[in-house]
Each structure stands twice: as C-alpha cells, then as structure tokens.
C-alpha cells in the first residue's frame, strides 16, 4: 500500500484553480521529488497535504505519519529551539519525544536549545525545521524548498543527515525543489508539475534524458536551475 496517495486533487483560491486533478504516490521508503516552475502549485500541494488548505475535489490519503518542513522554514520565532522541536511532536503526543535523536543528527542545535528560534541563521533554522518535522517520528518527510536561500555546504550537510536517518529507518521523502539538479541527483522518481497539473512523471534518470525536461530545468534555457 502506498504511503501517500493523492487522487484527482483540485484546489482553488476563490475562482483561481491552483491544482487541477493532481495524482501522486509515494511508496514507503521511496525518494520522490516534485519539480516545476514558480507558481506551478508545488507549495499549494504541500499545504493541502498538511491539511492547511482544503481541496475542492479529490482525496489525500496518508497511511502513516508525515512530517512537514514548510517553505521558508516557518519556525515559531518567539519560542526557543527546544520548544520548536517539541511542538513537532504535537500529533503523536509522545511522552518521550526523540529530542536526543535530533540533537544527534544536528549536534550544533543542542548548544542553542534555549535560544529564540528567530535569532538563528538560515541554515540553523532549516536544521530546526527538519528536526521539528522528524520529532513526530514520521514515515514520510515532506520538504518544501530545502535548498532555497542556503549555502551549498549547509544544504549538503542537511542532505547527508537525512540520508543517514534513512539508512536506519524506512523514511520516505517527498522533496519539493527548485534546484532540479540536486533533486534529480538525490531522488529516484520525479513528478513535474506545471500550471497545477502533473505533466510528466517517472524515474529521474529517464526524465533527465527527455529533451523538453532537460531544456526547461537542467540548463538549456537556464532560469529555473542553476
């Protein structure tokens, strides 16, 4: 059974259709990426998966727990790093939230546990956001724009740490990325979204060889990918 099943999803903002019949699946332990230009509906999809937006039609089924890393980190900036992490476990209401696990993955967070999250640097904030999503002990991690605005070395570290966790658990990943090179290098399967519709899907290797995709995302016209 698929971990995440999205069927015929339609989401509107008033009259404007943002997602138009989106279908998407993530199997347990799978690495999937969703790429597409600005305004294609990527973040809308994440918000709908998280239950922040309500679909007009269609269904989202998550057979298990999902953790979300929203676009732009979205930390609780007035609360401490530790409080941010603890609130990530809200859904599971665990009595012993895996704080130490997160501190093990991102050791530098331990020393700033009591600092206000708003005072952290962008990279540290992204670590808190990833850590917060991991606190709910998810089987699916949804990451919206992991690399946006971060130095390559920081991105590399976070990617490494997520990979390390995946070695221990069967964590599946749905990565929404503008940096298509990174996404295609990391993930096995990809969906391409444009204008609220899924226009292509398949193994990342096969997709990268399609001329249209290569043009649009991996060079050619430039633009979306560096």
């Amino acid at each position: 059974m698929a971990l995440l099943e999205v069927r015929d999803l339609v989401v509107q903002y008033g009259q404007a259709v943002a997602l138009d019949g989106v279908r998407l699946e993530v199997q347990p332990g799978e690495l999937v990426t969703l790429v597409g230009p600005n305004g294609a509906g990527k973040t809308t999809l994440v918000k709908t998966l998280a239950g922040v937006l309500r679909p007009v039609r269609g269904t989202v089924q998550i057979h298990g727990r999902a953790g979300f890393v929203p676009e732009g980190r979205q930390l609780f900036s007035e609360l401490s790093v530790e409080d941010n992490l603890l609130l990530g476990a809200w859904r599971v209401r665990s009595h012993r939230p895996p704080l130490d696990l997160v501190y093990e993955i991102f050791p530098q967070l331990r020393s700033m546990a009591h600092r206000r999250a708003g005072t952290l640097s962008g990279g540290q904030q992204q670590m808190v956001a990833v850590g917060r999503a991991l606190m709910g002990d998810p089987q699916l991690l949804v990451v919206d724009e992991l690399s946006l605005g971060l130095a390559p070395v920081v991105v590399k570290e976070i990617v490494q740490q997520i990979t390390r966790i995946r070695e221990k658990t069967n964590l599946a990943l749905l990565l929404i990325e503008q940096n298509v090179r990174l996404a295609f290098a990391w993930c096995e399967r990809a969906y391409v979204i444009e204008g609220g519709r899924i226009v292509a899907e398949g193994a990342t290797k096969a997709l990268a060889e399609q001329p249209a995709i290569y043009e649009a995302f991996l060079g050619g016209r430039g633009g979306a990918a560096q």
Partner: protein
Amino acid sequence: MSLLIEYLVSGIAIGCTLALVGSGLVAVFRVTRVINFAAGTFSVVAAFLTASALQTWHLPHGLAEAMGVAVGLGLGLGVGAVALGRRGLSPISALVITFGLAIACYAGELLLWGDLPQSYPGVPGTLTVGKLFIQDQNLLIIGVTLAIFAGIWLFFNRTYLGKGMTACADNPMAAEMMGIDVRRMGLWAFGMGGLLGGIAGVLLAPIQPMTFSSDVNLAIGGFAAAVFGNLMSLDLALLGGIVLGVAESLVAGYFQASYESIVALAVMIAVMTWRAIQRRDQSDVEDRPPAPAAATGGARALWVRVALPLFGIAAALAIPLGLNQSNLTVYITMCLYAVITIGLSLLMGFAGQISAGQAAFMAIGAYTAALLSLHGWPPLLAFLAAPVVSGLFAALIGIPVLRMRANYLAFATMAIQLMLVALLSNIPALGGSTGLVSIPNFGIGSWQIQSLRGYAWLSVAVAVIILFLSRNLIASRPGRALRALATSEVAAESVGVHVMRFKVVVFAISAAYAGLAGAIYAFFMGAITPDGFSLLLSLEFLVMVIVGGLGTLAGPLVGTALLVILNQVLNTLGTQPGMPAYMPEVLSYAVYGCTLVVVLIAFPHGLVPFFSGQFRRWFGRQQQAPTAKPVPGAPVDVEPQRQSWG
C-alpha cells in the same frame, strides 16, 4: 498620609482587576491576534449573575461567585466561537465582531437586570493597622490576582498546551502543519479571557458597583494595562494594571471620579509614545482590513461617470423641496452622518484601522463651532475652524497610536469618546452637562440660514463636496498609496509609501469630516449637549460603514440611509406606551450589535460590494472581475487583487 496609603491599596486592588481583564486580552491576542472588545462584558455579566445568585436566589457565597465565573467562561467561549467561526476572517473583522457582541450583550443585560448599578457584599471586615483601615476585599483581590498570574505564567511558559497556544500566534501556518488545531486553540484562549474577566468582575463588584456599561471602562482599563506589554506579555500587563489602578485611584481621590477614562487614555498614549520612541514594537502583526478597498475608475461608460453623479446631485438637491419639517430633520441627519461615514470608510477601508469614537470628533467640531460663534466669531470662520481642530486633535492622538502595527486605534478612540463626554460634562466653561445653548444660525455676512430647508441644502451641499473630494483623493497619487496600504502594509512600505504618515493623515481626514458635520449640527440644532455625542452614536457610524461596505464611497451612503431609517423605526417601537424608559436603548443595542456580527459573517465586504458583485454576475458584465485563470501559488487568502501600481 494614611489616606494616601488607603488610596494606594484600593488603587492596587482595582489595578489587579484591570490586570486580570488585561491578561484575558493578552491571552486572546497571543493566540489569535484578535483584540477582544468584549473583555469587559465577561466581568459585568459575571458580576450581575453573582449579584442575582446572592440576593435573589439566596445562594451561599462561593457558589454564587463560582456561578458568575462559570458564566464568564461560557460567554468567553461563545464570543470566541462567533468571532473565530468563519474561516479566514481577518483579525480586524473579528475585533469588530467582538465589539458587536459586547454591544448586543448590553441589550440582554438591560432586559435581565435593568439599568441600576449592581453590587453585593464581599469579604466583610477591615484590617486595622494603627490609623490605617484596609478592606479585606482589597487584600483578597490582590492575593487572588497574584495567584492567578502565577498560574497563567506557568501555563504559557511551562506547559506543552500553553506552548502550543503560543505557537498558534507565532506562526499559525506552521502550527497547523504540526497538527495543532489553531482555531480550537483560539477558542480556548477566548474561554480563558472569559474566565479571567469573570474573576475580575466577581472580585470587583463588592467595591465598585457595576452597571451594564461598566464594561467599557473595564475593557479600556484592561487594554491600557495590556498595552504595557504590547498585548503579549503577562507580567507587564500586571504591572500596567497596577500603575493604572493607582493612578486612577489617586485621581479619583484627589480630583474627580469621572476622570478615570482620561487617566486610562493618558497612560495608554504615554506608553505607546514611549514604545514608539523605543521602537520596541517588533511584532510583525499585519492586520489586513476586511476588504481591500475597491478601486474606483476603470474604464466606465461616460454616462456612469458623468450623467449618473449629476443626476444624483440634482435629486439630492431637489429632495428637500418635497419634505415636511420632521422629514427634513431626518434628511439633514442623513447628510451629516454620510459626511462622517465617508471619512470612516476611508479610515477603515484604506488604513485598515477602526475608530470607535467618531462621535467624539463630531463633538469637537460642534463645540469648536459653537464656542467660537458664541464668542463673536463670524459663523463661516467658526464653521471652517471646526474640521481643522478635529483633524489636528486626531493627528495628535494618531501619531503615537498609529505607530503600533496592531489595531490599537479602536481602543484609543473609544477612550477618547468616553474621556470627551466626561470632560465636556465637567467643564463649566463648556456648559457642563447642559451644554451650549443659543448658538447663532449659520450665515455668511448678513445672510443667514433661517429655515430647516436651508440647512438641508447646506448639509447636502457639504455632503456632495466631501463625496467628490474623497473620490478624487482615492483616484489621486496619494490615493494609490492608500490603496496599496489597504492591500499590504509591508508591500506598501517596500515601495516607499510612508505607512505611518498616511495612516495618520487618513485618520485626521476622517476626524475633520466628523468635525465638519459636527459644526453644521451645532448651527442647525442651536444647542448641543455632551450626551448628544454618545458611544452609541459612534457605534452607529461603525455599523453604517460596515453594513454599506468599507473603502467604497457608495457603501457609507447606502449604510447611512438604511441605518437612519432603521433608527426611526426602532425609536417608534421603543417608545410605545408601557415600555421601560431604557427600551429604545435596548432595541438599538440589540439591533446594531447583531447587525455588525451578522453582516461581518455573512457579507464580510458589506452590502454594496456584495450586491454590485451579484449585479455583475447576473448581467454578465465582467468589469474588473477577479482573474479567473489559474493563479497557482498565490497567497492563501487571495482577494481579488488589483494591479494599481504606477
């Protein structure tokens, strides 16, 4: 010396109750970003119910108080459920809803308990230290308050639920992604506000008898206390409450009891000014106005732009010819109110700020014109001075208050409203509570307006001029800045619009309009009293604008016409034989309060935008309709965006 200490102790006790109300405001604001105008209502209803339980049902102490507090809690949850009921309602709309509910509660309170002050014995006995007498009730209040503050501090800072609630305020979207039910948390916060307000009321009633309208002073006091901590910090709210209570107690002891709202306002303004200087207001609360103001213009047909207004003016000028004396009075009222509501619509629609004290600015204009002309100024000069004085006064208040991002103006204007009526009634030079009489007629040189019809024409002419001034203001370059302001303050700031200055200017303009209407009112009536400019009148203006539609010019006109007529009907109903003297008030409160709530929930943009939208839909005229093609990735609460940048 002992007197001073007694004042201090009772001041601290009263301050504690204000701090409790204030902490309720903080709890609600922290979680929902809504400023809860009904904060004082919880106290009043809790106190009333306790009084009934003790005196009518003869229940024992303890049980009666518990019942009162429980009702406060229930009322808090009820207000929260209505204010947060509709998804995507902006904090400013929710604020007006709480205001409407508070007003609607007046009607219930009057019907159930009448308009006499209610009180009951608290803890008997006094503590005697030498020549010092301190009521035990005061000590009880202080003790309970400290214990409660310790409790809520622990709740917010040490418990998981408390942190979850704080997270909702901090970043609602992220909170929802973590699975926190933001609206349920908001509801709990309102319940907490009700609980705290109820406790305050039950504690306060034995030392300060309460009437149905005590809630206004409590809410303003609580708000002033909460402002100390920028509506976020509980400990500063406690400190603020105590400072305020002591100040009020000293003023009441050594000067005049009725000046307490002046103290609250002065403290509020002082704290805000200080905060503005410190630039400590770092919270990025951006309260969007309920509706981005509708753009004027667009490519409309010539007949719409020229013929229709001309026809309207001709009709407006012709109407007085066909009216009898009493209808002329209604017509004049309508025109004057329209001038005021157009200003209020600009303020609410474009600056996203609410004034709950427009009647006060009308009063300033009326008194300015009356005093000057009584002192021998030519009526025309007195008439022109009125809007200037009102506008300057507003600017003076607006500069510190509007620096704050959150909607503090609503409370500040309400405080101005109360303060002004209190001041006017107490200053002999301004006629005291009998007001000013034998104000000369309006005239220019030797020509004087002698008839009602003359005043009708004057009013309608002023209304038309104001309408055109406002229309041109919106269409001008500053107007474009205003429209930018209505859509997003941050965005407006980023393209170089000086947000604060514009807000102050719009506030001053709206006050000047009210002053102008007040001046005509003074000349037309020939006599004015402080009671003529009540909070109820300010409320009516608010209802008119919200019913009609914010940020439009047609909205306030329609709203005003509807409400003035409705007012006549309510007055006729309320003054039927056999009704208690306060019946007209009950009806007004109930109808206006409920109207505010219903309109904001059912037609959040007001009637005029709603029906003009329907009209377009029915007749297929897609003028400036929102783009129907996919605009993915747009912000969550997309409103029809207008591209009105340079």
